[in-house]
Every structure is written in structure tokens, then in C-alpha cells.
């Protein structure tokens, strides 16, 4: 018995030693791979990144990435929304002349191209920086990635898109001077005739917040409710992320749908009466916002790899989450204090719909998109 125990202990020790050695070798190998990638990236000299049209995010990334790696960032802002960028990218791909190396942005448009093999590169072999490879530092102990390609949707080894933040969408805001606290406890309260003509929403026909919230409501309450809320209540459909919250903050409209916190905070910080409301029958949509990242088949494959690793590193995520006001999925950050409280998921609350979920995207959201002009008009 004793011999067996000693043998067993020896076996365990040997196994542990082997695993440790293998882990060490793997770490060294990754460190080597990272050094090699960095050196090759420096040789390429620059990386072209398409990202959200937020100048303050662009400024940080352009300056800091070059300072950290010596590689220049050519920033391509998604001006006018992601639609024009997607159109250009797909045409470039057809001509085999993709000029962008990395995409940072939302999921809806990303689903339009990230599964096309001639457009997107696999993220899995790119993640080599020792700072990012320890998945235990990420929520639920793993990366949150979209997998598969157009040809092979079930190919789990092809990581086409990685989500780096997670938060609760700004689905419903009110002007607190006009709408008393507690007067909206359920989404159906918004159908009260007294709110007719007093609601403004981000246009659901465009990708982004408007479509995300509309798809959420479509998923939870169905088409009839969406129609009654948007059409029946004569909701104004605005396309500006800042003008819509401004209209609620100034009392021009009493209720706002689908706002982004970066815009809302401009007004809230100045003491204007605008606040998030959480109806009990639908506490909100979970989303990754603008935090998605994809590697594209641009001309600088190594600099692209360096950028992706740099972007999801602890140091960069600390800063980027505060610039975008989107809570990072990394769990080892020093602080999350810069994130507005109303975007953090609440303990014990169930959020059944996630905008980045493949099932939601190709299910209710896809269905809404097919019905979008029938509901909201052309």
C-alpha cells in the first residue's frame, strides 16, 4: 500500500514536473513568438486600424501604441457609421487589395464581414503575448470570441471576432423633470397615450444602438409591442448619438430609447436631468458595444498581431474601458470606477438577451432586420 502511495506520489510529482516544464516551455515559446512578432511588426513599420469615430480614443491609441511598440498606427475612423467602411472593405476584398489590418467596433456590421475568409484572419494563433494568453484573467476564465466562417460556421478553431467589454445597454432614459421617478416600472407603461410624440429613439434601421435596443424589445416582447411603441407612439427617429440625449436632457422629448453612455454622460455630468430607468420586465440588453476586435487580411500581418495583443493587454484595457465607458471583460484591472454605474450588470438580475450572442444575432435580430422596413417604414 505504502509502495503504491510512494509510487503514486512519484507519479504525481513526475506528471506535475512534466506539466510545469511543458507550461514553462509553452510560456517561453509564446514569449519567443511575441518577440518575433514584435520584431517583424517593427519591420513592417505601421498598422492600419479602423475604429469607432471617437477622436479621444483614436488619439490615445495612436500615441500610446507607437510609444509602446515603435509601430505607427494609421487610424481609419468609421465616419458616417460602419456601413461605408463595410462597403469599402468588401470591394477591397473583391479586388484582393485590403488596406485595413484591424477592425475595432460593434458586432452587427462585423457579422457582415468577419466570417468571410478572404477578409478576416484567425485571431487564435495571433494571441501570443504572455500578458494576454492567461485566460483565467478574463471573465468566466475564457476569452469571449465568435467562431466559424461563412463556409464552416461550426469551425470553433477559427476565431473571427473577440469581444473585450461587456455592459448593460442604455435602452431607456427619461428626463427626470418631466417623468417622475417610479412612473415607468414596466416597458408597457411607455404605451400610455400621454407619452405619444414625446419619445425619441436612435433609428433602428441603422446598425448600432438603435437596432440593438429594437431587436432586444422585439426579442422580449414581440413585433406588436415594437410597432406600438415606435410607430403607435409616433417616436422620433434620430440618427445622432448626441442630439438624441440632448433632446431628452433639455426636455424637448421626455423619453429616450437607445442612448450610448459616452453621450449621456456629457449632459449628466453638467447636472442636466437625464437618468436611466430599468423597467422590471426588461432590465436591459447586454452588449459588447464598440469593444469587438477582428484581424483583417491587410498588408501588415505582424504589426496587426502586435496591435491585437497590445489592445487586449491589461495596461491598454485599463485606459480604453475608461475612454469608451465600457466595462472590460478582463477581471484583473486595477479599477472599474470610471464606468457609469447604470451600465454595470446588477447582481442577481437575469439578462436573457446578449447583442453579441450568435443565436440572438442570427435569430430575433436577423428577423427584425428582415421586418425592419415593414415596421419602421422606408
Amino acid at each position: 500500500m505504502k509502495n503504491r502511495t510512494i509510487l503514486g506520489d512519484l507519479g504525481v510529482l513526475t506528471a506535475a514536473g512534466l506539466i510545469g516544464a511543458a507550461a514553462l516551455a509553452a510560456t517561453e515559446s509564446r514569449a519567443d513568438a511575441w518577440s518575433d512578432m514584435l520584431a517583424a511588426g517593427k519591420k513592417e513599420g505601421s498598422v492600419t486600424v479602423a475604429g469607432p469615430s471617437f477622436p479621444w480614443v483614436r488619439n490615445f491609441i495612436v500615441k500610446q501604441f507607437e510609444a509602446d511598440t515603435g509601430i505607427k498606427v494609421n487610424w481609419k475612423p468609421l465616419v458616417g457609421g460602419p456601413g461605408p467602411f463595410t462597403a469599402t472593405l468588401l470591394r477591397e476584398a473583391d479586388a484582393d487589395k485590403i488596406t485595413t489590418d484591424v477592425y475595432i467596433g460593434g458586432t452587427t456590421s462585423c457579422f457582415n464581414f468577419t466570417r468571410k475568409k478572404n477578409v478576416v484572419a484567425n485571431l487564435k494563433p495571433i494571441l501570443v503575448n504572455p500578458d494576454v494568453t492567461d485566460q483565467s484573467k478574463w471573465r468566466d476564465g475564457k476569452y469571449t470570441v465568435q467562431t466559424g466562417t461563412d463556409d464552416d460556421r461550426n469551425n470553433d478553431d477559427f476565431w473571427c471576432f473577440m469581444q473585450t467589454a461587456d455592459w448593460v445597454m442604455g435602452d431607456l432614459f427619461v428626463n427626470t423633470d418631466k417623468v417622475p421617478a417610479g412612473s415607468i416600472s414596466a416597458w408597457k407603461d411607455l404605451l400610455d397615450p400621454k407619452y405619444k410624440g414625446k419619445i425619441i429613439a436612435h433609428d433602428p434601421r441603422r446598425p448600432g444602438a438603435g437596432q440593438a435596443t429594437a431587436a432586444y424589445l422585439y426579442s422580449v416582447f414581440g413585433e406588436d409591442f415594437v410597432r406600438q411603441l415606435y410607430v403607435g407612439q409616433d417616436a422620433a427617429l434620430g440618427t445622432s448619438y448626441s442630439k438624441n440625449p440632448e433632446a431628452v436632457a433639455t426636455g424637448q422629448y421626455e423619453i429616450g430609447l437607445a442612448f450610448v453612455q459616452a453621450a449621456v454622460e456629457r449632459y449628466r455630468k453638467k447636472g442636466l436631468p437625464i437618468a436611466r430607468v430599468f423597467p422590471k420586465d426588461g432590465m436591459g440588453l447586454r452588449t459588447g458595444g464598440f469593444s469587438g476586435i477582428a484581424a483583417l487580411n491587410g498588408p501588415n500581418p505582424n504589426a496587426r498581431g502586435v496591435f491585437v495583443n497590445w489592445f487586449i493587454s491589461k495596461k491598454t484595457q485599463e485606459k480604453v474601458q475608461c475612454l469608451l465607458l465600457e466595462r472590460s471583460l478582463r477581471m484583473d484591472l486595477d479599477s472599474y470606477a470610471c464606468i457609469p454605474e447604470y451600465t454595470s450588470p446588477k447582481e442577481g438580475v437575469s439578462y436573457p438577451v446578449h447583442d453579441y450572442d450568435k443565436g440572438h444575432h442570427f435569430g430575433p435580430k436577423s428577423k427584425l432586420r428582415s421586418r425592419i422596413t415593414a415596421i419602421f417604414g422606408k
Partner: protein
Amino acid sequence: MRLALGGFLLLAVAAVSLSPVMVVIVGSFEDSGAWRSLLLESGQARSALGYSVLFAARAPFAALIGFLLAWLLIRVRIPGREFIEFMLWIAFFLPLIPVTLGWMLLLDSPTGLLNRWLAALPFIDGPVFDVSSVAGILWVHMTASSVPVMVILLGPAIRQMDASFEEAGRVCGSGTFEVFRRITLPLLLPAIVTGAILGFIRGLEAFEVEQLLGVKEKIYVYSTHVYALINWEPPRFSEAMAMSTLVLGGLLVIALFYQRYTFERGHATVTGSGMSLREIPLGRGRWVLAGLFFAMVFVTVIVPIAFLLLGTSMTLFGFFHIPEPFTTEHWSTVLDDPSFVPSIVNTLILGLGAAALGVFAYAVIAYAVVRTRIGFRPLTNFLAWLPWCVPGILLGVGMLSLVLFTPFLTPLYGSIFVLVIAIAVAQLPLGVNMMKTSVVQIAPELEHASRVCGAGWWRTFLRIDIPLMKPMLISIFVLVTIAGIRDVSTVLLLAQPSSLPLSVLMLEYANNGDVEPAAVVGVFTSILVIVVAIAARRFGLQIGNPR
């Protein structure tokens, strides 16, 4: 030989103007439902077309007002007229986005400053002005571009008019008004009609003002609807292209009418007899006119610029009642932006490059169409109209496809030269048609005299025609430069990080709602165009220099 030359010119014009248009036409049939949706289902598309025509219909009024203003400025010794005319140029040069922002700060409902001031009056209930309305949009267009551009375009034609026609009228006993009505006006009618038609077409393509002021109130026009379709999810390219094809059809009718009109008339008003610059004595009336002109300049130029400047220093654009409403932070933001200086350089290259390339090309095409007997002239003339038939964003799509799928052009992709070509192509209709009005005004006998003296075609063109067309050449150079500085929609899809101009940087800020730094960029863009205007004046453009 004439046929070969004509064929070469036709091919060259077709390559740059027809290719992008064909991309749009073919694209409209890629989705079988696009036309049905456009013609039968889309209420917004029909409404957009209606609003487009309504807004574009300002052009004839603007042409008449502009003609009257230009005529008064040139023919009446109004005190300060050089300054007035210069300010009208500035009004037109100023980029529309910042000017619109200035008007929003003043006239927005209910937060506009003027509305707030008026609300303090006991007999006023609620906001009086609303710039986000049909009237507001028309006001911004008329004051910021439609009327000033007519003064700019019609001024050279008035200056180039032959003295002998009016003198003959006066010798026969006609008074000033009679001469104006029966001689000046009919002689300049082609230029006025051209201005009105061009203004109408430009009106159909207008984008920035409608995008800023109209969308919230569901006032869509052709270009903003196309922009919305491209930004929908999924993008509705076919529908956008079907709409453009429909408008293209309408514009063809206008183009054919215009061609017939201009080809049926001879317009030689510049002969060897010298220019008519006889001024009309108005006595003290000219001071009254000066007062009216200065009031107009104050309202249309000074006020929006002042409010734009005010907007750059506001903590929150339009919020005067919050604690600490003013800040210098937005200036620091823009000045620290690493994209700022490169985008200024790109903007200058874009504007000046497009103007240099364009003016030469426009002059050759216009001269060939009007004055030579080479083959395919009507077709070449017609093709030169096409780029205005599609909105900038779709012209960008067409140019993108052209560059990406044409092997010898592909190496240019990503460089600023593609943007330069795109702007030169986008301004082809303006350049060629305005140049034509200048060429038709030159009497053929001047060229004949040169030929008789032994000069060849090329020498005659350089020594006789070009100097006579100089005012128009410089006008067009400046207009194309300014278009290059201001244009957003044409370059949006083509611009790469290394070629981003100021206009796209401004949109990047404004897009996210950072109106204040966008206004700062707008101030720099405005400074740039004013510098161009002053430089052009030094190089001989008759800005604010009526004699």
C-alpha cells in the same frame, strides 16, 4: 483627324464621368426589389424627392437675386463695395457644416439664443424660430451659398459684357432701366439661366445642411436619403443607386434642354470693342444701398461666424445656462490631435491639386465643345454633365470601383491623388459649363485675327483665349479649390488614414456629437478658405475689386 481627336476626348471624358455613373446604374439592378421599393413602397423616398425639388427650386430666385446684387455692385459706385463683394465670396467659401452650427446656436428651437432672448418678452410664448425646418434650411442655403455663388458666377459675365451694345441703346435714347431690361438682361440671360440650372442641380445634391437640420424633423432630401440607405443595416445600395438613376433620368432632361438652349444662341459679348464699365450715378441713393448691403453682410456672414466662434468655446454647445458654460478645452483637444496638422496638409493638396488638374481639363473640354469642329462634341458635352447626377457618396462608390478594378489605376489606391481626381471629376459639370459661358462670350473674329497674323491654334488658344478667359479660369480654380476643401461625401469612402482631409476630421468629431471641437476644425477650415480667397485676389481674381 477631327473624328480621332473627338473620339479621344470623348473616351477621356467618358472614362472619368461615365464609369462611376455606370457603376450606379448597373448597381441599381443588382437587387430586383430596389426599383419596386423605390417606386411603389418607399414613402420616405417619394418625400425625399419632393423635398429635393422644393429646396432646389430656390435656384432661379437665387440666380435673379444674385444677378441683381452683382449688377449693382459692378455698375453702382457703392461705398465699400470691394469689401461687400469680398464678404460675399467669404460667405460662399465658408464650409456649410460650421455655418449651419452657427445658425443652430442662434435659431435652434427651443434652445437657440435668439429664441431664449425673445422668450423673455412678455408677449412671446414659445420659440419663434426653428432652424430645423423647411424655412430654416432654405434660409441657411440662400444666405450661405445660393445667392453668394450667383454673385460670384455672374460677376465675370457682367464684367465681360461688350460696351457697344449698351452704348448703342443709350445713343438711341433709352434710359438706364430700359437699357438694363432690353439689352443687359437679355444678353446675360444665358449666364443667368446657366447659373439657375447649375444651382438647381447643385440644390438636388445638397447634403450637409439637410443632414444637420432636416433629419430630426424627418425632412429627408435625395442625398440624405441615399446616405441613410447606405447606413441602414443591411446597407441598401441598390435602392440608393436606383434613386440616383431616377434622378439621373430627370437631370438628363434638364441637360438636354440646357444644351439645346445654349447651342441655339450665340453669346459673343466679348469682342474687340472693349468692356462696358459705365457706372450708374445714384447720388445719395448709393449710401442707402451700401447700408442695405452692409446689413446683409452682417446677417449672412458676420452673425454665423461670430456664433461659430462662440460655439467653439462653449462647454456644451448651445447650453448657456449651465455652470461654467465656457472653456478653452476644445481648442486644446484639436491642437493636440495628431491628425490635425496632416489633415491640413492633405486638404491643401486636395483642393489645389483638384483645381490645377481640373481647370486645365475643363478649359480644354469647354473650348473643344464650343469652338472646334471635332467629332462627338454633343456627346462629350453631355457626358461632362453626368457627375452631378449622382450624389457625392455614390460618386465615391463609383470611383472606388473604378480605381480598384482598373489595373493601371490600382497602384494609386490609398494615395491622395485618387481624392484629387474624384474632386476634379465631381466638379467637372461646374467647370466645363461655366468655362463654356466664358468661351461663347469670346467673339470668333478675335481668333480669326490671330490666325490671320500667322498664329497656330495652340498659340491662339494660349495668347488670345486664355487671357480673355482669365477671370473665369481663376474663378473656377478658386471654386474647385474650395470644393476640395469643403467636400465630405465624395471623399468619405476614398480617404485613407494618410490622406484624411480636414472635412473628414470635422465629420469625425461631429459624427459623435462633439460639436464643439468640430466647430474648432470648422474655424480652421474657414481660415483656410479665406486665405485661398485672399491669395486668389492677389493673383488677379476680381474678388471685391469690381473694376
